[in-house]
């Protein structure tokens, strides 16, 4: 019982304190900083669409290049009458 009284008596000595008057300003600055650093869903969608388009365009260009390159090579070989195999000697 005595210990209970002692605990309650001691804790009753803790009084309420006032926060700093500048705390609200600091909180609002923090909120502003958090809002500015947050990327919106729109921005994410826009960014990923752009990257996706870039990849597709690259693939198309690479594909068309490889097709036209092989055609050009075989045309050139025919015109020059060059051997396309690795055999050095005819059997």
């Amino acid at each position, binding site marked *: 019982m005595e*210990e*209970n009284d*002692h*605990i*309650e008596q*001691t*804790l009753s*000595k*803790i*009084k*309420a*304190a*006032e*926060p*700093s008057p500048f*705390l*609200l300003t*600091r*909180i609002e600055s*923090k*909120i502003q900083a*958090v809002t500015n650093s947050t990327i919106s869903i729109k921005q994410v969608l826009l960014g990923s669409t752009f990257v996706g388009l870039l990849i597709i365009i690259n693939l198309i260009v690479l594909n068309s290049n490889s097709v036209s390159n092989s055609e050009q090579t075989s045309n050139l070989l025919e015109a020059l009458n060059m051997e396309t195999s690795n055999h050095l000697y005819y059997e």
Partner: protein
Amino acid sequence: MNELEEFRQIYADHSNMVYNLCLNYLHRMEDAEEATQDIFVKIHQNYARFRGDSNLKTWIYRITVSHCLDILKAKKRQKRFGFMQSLFGPKGEEALPIADFNHPGVKLEDKESVQIIMQYIDSLPDNQKTAIILKAINGLSMKEIAEIMNLSSKAVESLLSRAKQNLKSKLKE
């Protein structure tokens, strides 16, 4: 009332409560101010999602309690890490200095006795610690504490009783 005015009103109505609850958990003015800032940022971010299942005051109390307990857990982890470093690493200081009790609501002549009781309260399990802080220091009713902790009033009574038993046995040591 626009969003900013509404937020300022919430701050005006609840800042004292949040700040003092943080002080009672963290014991230092600087830590309590930092925590209060983070809590109000959380309130601002989540206010749109607040459905009104509980009243606003209860909701804010819950955010505050949860945030303070997270800070205390993080501090304990840092202390453990610092201790391990001192065992296996180069000799040096602890990762965290021993907390300086700096509660602006406590007079200088009462500081020592309050600090001792608060240290014992700190060593209680989270539930008991929260119950005793809300009851004995913040002066909330059983019903209010039960709402905040999402427990029945009986469960809160039991927590308080165990908390007091634990504190009594620590005082006797």
